[in-house]
């Protein structure tokens, strides 16, 4: 096939149709002229048949193209197009008739050429009406098409095409073959007329309009048929099998549509209702888009439920924390009415039983009767999100017993769906929030890590290692070192009460206090007193910090220390080959927030020799539990040091951590923050 540029197809077929029609007119007039003047019939009737068929095809081509281009699946405009064509055709034909009746019996009225001309005009109009309407019907028939209907339609088109050429076979005569074709084509038309799936989708108003348009098509179409046979009384055109069957198809489909639409009228509101419900359900089930909020879903819910139950008024009451005090959404109910009705609802005993009993997810919708001047029946539906009652929806009707089971069912489904949407929305938000918190905690963890020293101050006379592990992302353990001068070093270890983020904040305060106070050249007990005074102003009333501080003097080989409620420090003396806990009294920091604290802190000094080991730690180690809830305990740690005293500090540290983990067992986690600082004295100082 030759592919023509698309835009020209419509215009081209229109032009061709006009040309073919003019040719047909010319040929027929020439024939008429020859007939009147008794000339030799050199032009056979086949010639005008061919032209007729060409005309049919051109009109078909034009409308096929123009309707397909303009169609938007709007049934009403389709039918209107058919109706308007019929109106146009009828008015032109009527004008011709009026013209003739005005002429009366004048010579012009009997002018055969003029009659023939008008015959051709009305012929063209009828063909245009028939073919364009047939194509409109095709669109209606093929609405929601399946394979079977498409096959039927194709069969019909082919049969019609054969019918078009049938004129050549029967040569204008009636016969058995003609009748057979007639019955076959009409039968096919009837079968096709059963495809009326588009009708239920019309709204009530649209149905009325379509009834009107269909009536116009039926009446004007029939009128055209009669007037055409009137004008062309000598047969010729009516005898055409194609035109007759097409007429039959147009009128029968219009009639079927008319009747079905008419009988559909009473139930159309139900279908509309169901369609609205389905659409509402779909709207509710769409998850809430980011940026939208739950109110929109509740809004849709309220409207959907009202329309499903034909309720006269409704409102939503939200009572969960997420909504500001008694958040409500109202429909056709004034604040005053709501108050009155709420009072009436509350006085009913069933309502008390209803909202008070059992799990929220098991509460069923409740229908109650009320005595109110405007409303007589009320439906209460619980809104349950994530197994929590977040509020209720109240639907009111003016009539008594206005809610039936079907309404309650559909409303319950709406409510469930809306609640699921809201729940999903919340879960999504939570997931996003959690993700952000995780990121924040990661940052906090890194910040806290930087608060613990990476370089521990020491000289060649002692070795030192330290380790800290937080149970959560961040923890409350603290250790630090400070170099006063070549021979004077300070070590501190601390433990903030509580765990997690709050402990981590207090731990950073402790770091600040240590780094400030240590500059002041204080003795260990003075340090604790000042730290206590400072922390008394920083810590919440039920928080405290325990700490131990050690001033190492490597020229004197002494350690001066103080303890503030911290677990006693373990000390291994190589001379006795024994490890013991240093005994010294001292109250935790932040417990007594006045001068009295000074009476609760001591300071002691001891000497060390080479190979002595000092183990500073936090209570997470002592309190670590195994599967049977036994604590790691002081004794286990003490003997561990005694046995492994020869190990280097880092080896000793690993040893302690390993035994702690194997004590806790398998993949058990130590449930508290724990820290460890191991100091081993190597060379003695000058005095040695």
């Amino acid at each position: 096939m030759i592919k023509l540029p698309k835009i020209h197809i419509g215009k081209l077929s229109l032009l061709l149709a006009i040309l073919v029609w003019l040719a047909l007119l010319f040929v027929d007039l020439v024939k008429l002229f020859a007939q009147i003047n008794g000339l030799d019939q050199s032009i056979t009737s086949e010639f005008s048949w061919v032209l007729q068929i060409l005309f049919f095809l051109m009109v078909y081509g034009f409308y096929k193209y123009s309707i397909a281009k303009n169609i938007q699946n709007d049934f009403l405009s389709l039918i209107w197009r058919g109706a308007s064509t019929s109106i146009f055709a009828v008015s032109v034909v009527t004008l011709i008739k009026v013209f003739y009746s005005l002429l009366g019996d004048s010579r012009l009225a009997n002018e055969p050429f003029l009659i023939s001309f008008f015959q051709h005009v009305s012929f063209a109009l009828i063909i245009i009406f028939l073919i364009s309407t047939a194509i409109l019907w095709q669109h209606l028939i093929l609405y929601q098409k399946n394979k079977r209907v498409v096959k039927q339609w194709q069969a019909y088109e082919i049969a019609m095409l054969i019918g078009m050429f049938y004129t050549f076979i029967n040569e204008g005569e009636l016969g058995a073959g003609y009748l057979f074709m007639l019955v076959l084509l009409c039968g096919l038309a009837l079968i096709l007329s059963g495809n009326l799936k588009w009708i239920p989708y019309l709204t009530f108003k649209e149905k009325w309009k379509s009834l009107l348009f269909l009536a116009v098509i039926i009446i004007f179409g029939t009128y055209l048929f009669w007037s055409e046979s009137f004008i062309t009384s000598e047969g010729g055109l009516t005898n055409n099998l194609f035109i007759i069957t097409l007429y039959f198809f147009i009128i029968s489909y219009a009639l079927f549509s008319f009747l079905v639409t008419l009988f559909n009228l009473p139930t159309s509101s139900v279908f509309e209702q169901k369609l609205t419900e389905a659409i509402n359900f779909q709207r509710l089930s769409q998850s809430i888009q980011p940026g939208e909020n739950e109110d929109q879903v509740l809004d849709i819910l309220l409207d959907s439920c009202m329309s499903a139950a034909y309720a006269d008024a409704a409102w939503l009451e939200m009572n969960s924390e997420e909504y500001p005090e008694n958040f409500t959404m109202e429909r056709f109910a004034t604040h005053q009415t709501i108050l009155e009705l709420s009072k009436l609802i509350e006085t009913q005993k069933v309502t008390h039983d209803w909202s008070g009993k059992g799990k929220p997810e098991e509460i069923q919708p409740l229908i109650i009767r009320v005595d109110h001047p405007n409303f007589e029946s009320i439906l209460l539906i619980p809104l349950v999100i994530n197994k929590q009652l977040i509020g209720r929806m109240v639907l009111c009707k003016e009539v008594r017993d206005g809610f039936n089971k079907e309404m309650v069912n559909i409303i319950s489904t709406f409510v469930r769906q809306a609640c699921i949407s809201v729940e999903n929305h919340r879960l999504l938000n939570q997931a996003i929030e959690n993700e952000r918190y995780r990121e924040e905690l990661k940052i906090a963890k890194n910040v806290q890590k930087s608060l613990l020293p990476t370089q521990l101050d020491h000289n060649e006379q002692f070795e030192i290692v330290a380790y800290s592990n937080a149970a959560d992302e961040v923890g409350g353990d603290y250790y630090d070192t400070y170099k006063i001068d070549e021979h004077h070093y300070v070590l501190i270890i601390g433990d903030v009460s509580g765990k997690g983020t709050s402990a981590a904040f207090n731990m950073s305060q402790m770091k600040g206090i240590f780094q400030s106070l240590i500059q002041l050249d204080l003795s260990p007990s003075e340090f604790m007193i000042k730290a206590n005074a400072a922390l008394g102003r920083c810590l919440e009333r039920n928080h405290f910090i325990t700490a131990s501080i050690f001033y190492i003097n490597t020229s004197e080989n002494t350690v001066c220390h103080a303890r503030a409620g911290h677990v006693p420090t373990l000390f291994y003396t190589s001379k006795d080959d024994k490890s013991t806990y240093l005994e010294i009294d001292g109250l935790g920091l932040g417990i007594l927030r006045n001068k009295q604290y000074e009476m609760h802190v001591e300071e002691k000094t001891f000497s060390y020799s080479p190979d002595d080991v000092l183990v500073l730690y936090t209570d997470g180690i002592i309190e670590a539990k195994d599967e049977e809830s036994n604590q790691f305990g002081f004794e286990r740690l003490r003997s561990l040091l005694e046995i492994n005293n020869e190990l280097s500090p880092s080896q000793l540290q690993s040893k302690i951590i390993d035994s702690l983990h194997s004590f806790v067992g398998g993949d058990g986690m130590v449930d508290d923050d724990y820290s460890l600082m191991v100091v081993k004295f190597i060379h003695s100082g000058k005095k040695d």
Partner: protein
Amino acid sequence: MLTITSEKENKHDILKLNGEIDASNSVILDEAIQKLAANGSKSILVDGEHLQYISSAGLGVFMSYLEDFQEKEIQLKIFGLSARVYEVFKILGLDQLISIYPTKVEAILD
């Protein structure tokens, strides 16, 4: 797990602690003590016989009432602590500030 039961014996309110006190449930202990103080109790005896463990958060609760009770002249005494739990009080130095007794009788008599 922590369960607290409270009973009145003469002028004394006895709080029985059963289980473990850690950061997650220390608020229950706090509420129990606060309630007794608000009800005008002048002598609160804490029965620690069935207290298996107390974390720093739990100690923080006792600590937070020290000054308050001194002002209001409310006596807070603890008795019956296991050696392990007593050790925790002792290390922190709270044994110096809170009256801790081996038995209920001693706590009442003192």
